């Protein structure tokens, strides 16, 4: 019997084995920053009041926005799904409390561009009545991984470390993919932010339960919790909880506290010495990373039936009277949260969502907390002064010393300024993680990251325009070809008819040959049209989602009056 070669099917990768380093490696670059976490860790987690009115954005994640399932006047229960996802990379949205939908429409949302986007506005009825979500799985560790993934998806869980990538996608390695190591990211490297540390200390069991569920879903051989060595309380709490539960196969490894140790690629490198391939994902080297907050959210959903309707938010900075960590319902206006933290101090100057290195400044506090809001910073000018005037780059190379991606930020800056977008991709702009280290150390005070963000957006923009132009040109060419063909067919028919009339005429064949030759030329020309190079061809889902988001943002900007 002849052996059949399944040539068309991708062969499963050979199981990758990842070895953990005995002592964590130092990732390239990075900066030593003042942690400033103590001020928000003075008290245990406080439960924030449920506000009278919540603004729940339809898009709180990387990927497609959701579609509202409710309309004005509908009564909703806490935990009820109010918006559904329409594509794979997306996450549904749930009502954070019970009440009435008072509007579905465009409201300001926390966003780098400070735009408005679709929100569901819920007026709380004050009863906080829970819906039956059906998310709980009786014996979750015996369940089919597919079932777990579906429930993680139904629970609307996204990466809570700040990126907001749908977790269901990350617990789905896909056929032929093998995950050897599951890393739980507890390295909270940005200054001020302490929500992960607070969570670990308050609810270590949720974290551990979540780890078991995710591990089961992705079939990981080993699990490690990566944590910064400047979080001694959290380390102690974790180790205590692990030894109480006889969890010998989950290890806690401390990495040196150096920004950005909590970056996914940096943490993986520190723990394993492996580099995530450029434009690739950790899964390409047999690793998957989840944030501790995400892990706990998975446990709350699958073991307690609670979808992602609240999160722990660090409220900190010298502009806050009573800093701390609060468990906040999604959709709570920031102003209400600030009020519960004693309000602003005299010298408050800036409001930032996220950390002082990678966060973004908010134009107003009338914006809701969303799934990815790990931190609200209200700072004074003293802490975050206005940038000193920038002077010319002196090519000192300090930026290159601190770049964790080993890029040459001074060259990227040069080409971004010159709008030389081919050259800037040649210098691997898209490997930039926008950690901000280069701007922080630049003696010329250049807003380097801003230049890179600008260049990336412009390149996506051009890429999209080029694709559209390509499509338009293709259509045009197809039409021209069709018209030509029709014309030639008509002529051929005519010639045939003529030939039938005058059978002695012999040049029809020559004409036919000419036509075929012309068609061949067109075909060859079309085939020869080369695809433009560039690293925007094979984008990861995250990047594609980012592009889509940028497009959307641009679109909405255009729609603005």
């Amino acid at each position: 019997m002849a052996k059949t070669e399944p040539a068309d099917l991708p062969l499963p990768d050979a199981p990758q084995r990842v070895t953990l380093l005995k002592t964590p490696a130092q990732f390239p670059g990075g900066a030593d920053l003042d942690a400033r976490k103590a001020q928000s860790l003075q008290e245990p987690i406080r439960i924030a009041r449920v506000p009278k009115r919540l603004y729940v954005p339809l898009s709180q994640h990387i990927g497609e926005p959701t579609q509202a399932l409710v309309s004005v006047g509908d009564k909703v229960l806490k935990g009820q799904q109010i918006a559904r996802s329409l594509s794979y990379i997306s996450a549904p949205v749930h009502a954070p409390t019970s009440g009435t939908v008072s509007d579905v429409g465009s409201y300001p949302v926390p966003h780098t561009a400070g735009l408005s986007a679709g929100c569901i506005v819920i007026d709380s009825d004050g009863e906080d009545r829970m819906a039956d979500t059906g998310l709980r799985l009786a014996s979750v560790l015996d369940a089919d991984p597919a079932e777990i993934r579906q429930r993680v998806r139904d629970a609307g869980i996204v990466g809570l470390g700040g990126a907001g990538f749908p977790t269901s996608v990350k617990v789905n390695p896909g056929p032929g993919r093998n995950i050897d190591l599951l890393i739980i990211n507890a390295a909270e490297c940005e200054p001020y932010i302490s929500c992960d540390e607070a969570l670990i200390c308050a609810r270590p069991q949720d974290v551990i339960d979540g780890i078991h569920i995710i591990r089961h879903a992705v079939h990981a051989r080993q699990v490690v919790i990566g944590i910064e060595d400047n979080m001694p309380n959290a380390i102690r709490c974790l180790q205590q909880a692990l030894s109480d539960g006889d969890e010998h196969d989950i290890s806690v490894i401390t990495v040196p506290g150096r920004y950005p140790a909590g970056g996914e690629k940096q943490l993986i490198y520190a723990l394993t010495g492996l580099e995530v391939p450029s434009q690739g994902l950790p899964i390409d080297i047999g690793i998957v990373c989840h944030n501790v907050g995400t892990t706990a959210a998975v446990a709350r959903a699958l073991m307690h039936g609670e979808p992602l309707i609240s999160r722990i938010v660090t409220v900190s900075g010298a502009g806050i009277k009573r800093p701390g960590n609060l468990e906040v319902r999604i959709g709570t206006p920031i102003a209400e949260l600030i009020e519960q933290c004693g309000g602003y101090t005299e010298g408050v100057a800036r409001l930032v969502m996220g950390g002082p290195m990678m966060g973004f400044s908010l134009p107003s506090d009338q914006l809701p907390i969303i799934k990815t809001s790990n931190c609200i910073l209200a700072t004074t000018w003293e802490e975050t002064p206005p940038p000193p005037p920038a002077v010319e780059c002196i090519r000192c190379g300090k930026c290159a010393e601190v770049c964790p991606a080993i890029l040459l930020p001074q060259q990227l800056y040069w080409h971004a300024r010159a709008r030389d977008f081919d050259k800037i991709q040649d210098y691997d702009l898209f490997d930039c993680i926008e950690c901000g280290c280069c701007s922080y150390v630049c003696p010329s005070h250049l807003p380097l990251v801003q230049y890179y963000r600008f260049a990336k957006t412009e390149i996506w923009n051009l890429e999209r325009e080029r694709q559209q132009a390509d499509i338009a040109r293709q259509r045009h060419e197809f039409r021209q070809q069709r018209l030509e063909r029709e014309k030639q067919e008509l002529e051929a028919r005519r010639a045939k008819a003529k030939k039938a009339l005058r059978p002695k005429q012999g040049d029809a064949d020559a004409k036919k040959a000419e036509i075929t030759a012309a068609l061949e030329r067109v075909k060859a020309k079309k085939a020869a049209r080369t695809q433009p190079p560039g690293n925007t061809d094979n984008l990861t889902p995250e990047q594609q989602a980012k592009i889509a988001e940028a497009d959307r943002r641009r679109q909405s900007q255009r729609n603005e009056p």
Partner: protein
Amino acid sequence: MEFPTQSSPYLPPRNDVGRLMLTVILALIPGALCLMWFFGWGVLFNLVIATATAVAGEALILRLRHRPVRRTLMDGSAVLTGLLLGLALPPLAPWWIPVVGALFAIVVAKHLYGGLGYNPFNPAMVGFVVLIISFPLQMTQWSAPAGMGQESLSFVETFRMTMLETLPADTPLDTITMATPLDRAKSDLSQDLTWTEIKTNPLFGSFGGLGWQWINAAFLLGGLALLQQRAIAWQIPAGMLGGLFLMSLFFYIGDSDTFASPAFHLFSGATMLGAFFIATDPISAATTPRGRLYFGAGIGVLIYIIRTWGGYPDGVAFGVLLMNMAAPTIDYYTRPRVFGHAKSDE
């Protein structure tokens, strides 16, 4: 409540160009003092005149170019250019030597070539090279270092020399002009004297030139302070000193009679000043880590070649300028492997 928005990061910047330049200027102090100790008040006049001219020239050009004058002067780069040029000049040079040099350095080499951040050549060295090509007589008249037995000129005598080019009648010729150890070594070696014989000349100290060895040691000290402060990258001085050392060692081992010793090369002329303060000017140097090593090594090799076979007293200025031209190409071919890219990726 409303807030102003801005792009992250928000933490106050850790470094500042002005502070960086100030650090470099402060680190020059030990070397400058040592130079003054051995060569007298003329060094001070050179420094003052060159710096004042550089600052005035910068202010003038900034005004003509409609750039902020005060803020730009505060970055200290013009002061540093003036100081570096002043340190490279013969101590009894007439006043117009530092004036011409500093003006050319700032007006042409810095501003007409592009302005701070865009000038391809080290401005102080361009100024120096213009002077040595145009005024070889004035530029090669080095006075005798202290410790040679001559009486040194007083402050007033030096001032008169600098401003009016007049000297007290009874001044011995050696006071105002004497071969530097580098000159001496070259001319003596060309007359078939052996290195051991040459070294017995009082112009030579225990490891470098007389006086020069301590001047170099003092600049080395300042340079180490800069490294400790992380104000300069280590690769350039390491490359340059390494290049010069290996070149001189190679020839010295081959024939220790006709070639000067590595220690002499490292501790004579402008070696240490060049390695830590001149070649490290980031604007005109290579900027990748590996590139900086090559850039420095290239300068070291060129210095040795010019010193040994060239017609000029020292090779630092030419070495630096020649490598400045190669810096962009060196940078292009020494790009580091980006994180996550394959090791063999070219």
